[in-house]
């Protein structure tokens, strides 16, 4: 299991801090700068919050599995649940000029990750795949 790690948490908001901590450490291992770490941490948190809210309808004792993978191309995060299937069409945030609470999470996820994709092959629940391509570094 080279260059990957998995964290499994209950679907309770109090464990989101655990996921954030793992995300930051994995991002550091991937060589991310502070601003990138902040964006990626927020995005993974938002995706897990959405699992709690929508896939599990607020049920706090289900499981969320978050896999991290550091590859040549970048940083990959896969978030799995066994809750209600996401309706891909409803998966859009509000227009940012429409000021109201909510609808911001999806934008924050898309801002941090180049690929944001639900895996159709998963039978029960959802598997959301996030990939952030890493820019080549000077001198590397």
């Amino acid at each position, binding site marked *: 299991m080279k260059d990957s790690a998995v964290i499994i948490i209950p679907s309770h908001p109090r464990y989101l801090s655990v996921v954030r901590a793992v995300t930051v450490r994995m991002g550091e291992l991937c060589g991310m700068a502070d601003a990138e770490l902040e964006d990626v941490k927020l995005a993974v*948190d938002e995706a897990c*919050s959405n699992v709690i809210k929508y896939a599990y309808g607020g049920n706090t004792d289900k499981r969320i599995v978050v896999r991290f993978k550091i590859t040549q191309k970048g940083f990959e995060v896969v978030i799995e649940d066994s809750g209600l299937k996401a309706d891909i069409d409803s998966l859009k945030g509000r227009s940012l000029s429409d000021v109201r609470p909510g609808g911001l999470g999806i934008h924050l996820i898309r801002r941090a990750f180049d690929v944001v994709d639900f895996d159709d092959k998963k039978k029960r629940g959802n598997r959301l795949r996030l990939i952030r391509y890493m820019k080549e570094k000077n001198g590397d």
Partner: protein
Amino acid sequence: MEIEIVDYKGANVVVLSGDIDMYSSPILRKQLMLLIDKKVPLLLIDFKAVSYIDSSGIATFVEGLKGMMSYGGRLKLLGIPEGIMEIFNFSKLDRVFEIYGNIDDAFNN
């Protein structure tokens, strides 16, 4: 997240620290709503020690702002750290909130 409510020249200042996320924002929401239900004319939110905010935290302030605007109250945010300001900018909420550098600016403007 920790919440402390202090008085500054007669105004309520909500001093926040730590992470505002889906776990802590309902607690924050409750505190804000207690003040808003009392129709406080001015509410200052001190962000200096806030280390993190997610969309549920942002949504809580949008809700608070709408609540205060309904009776002509003013909600002012101050001391927002750079990383958190960036999220207000991104979500275009920097145009909607009154944002100040420090408590004096917030109080006097």
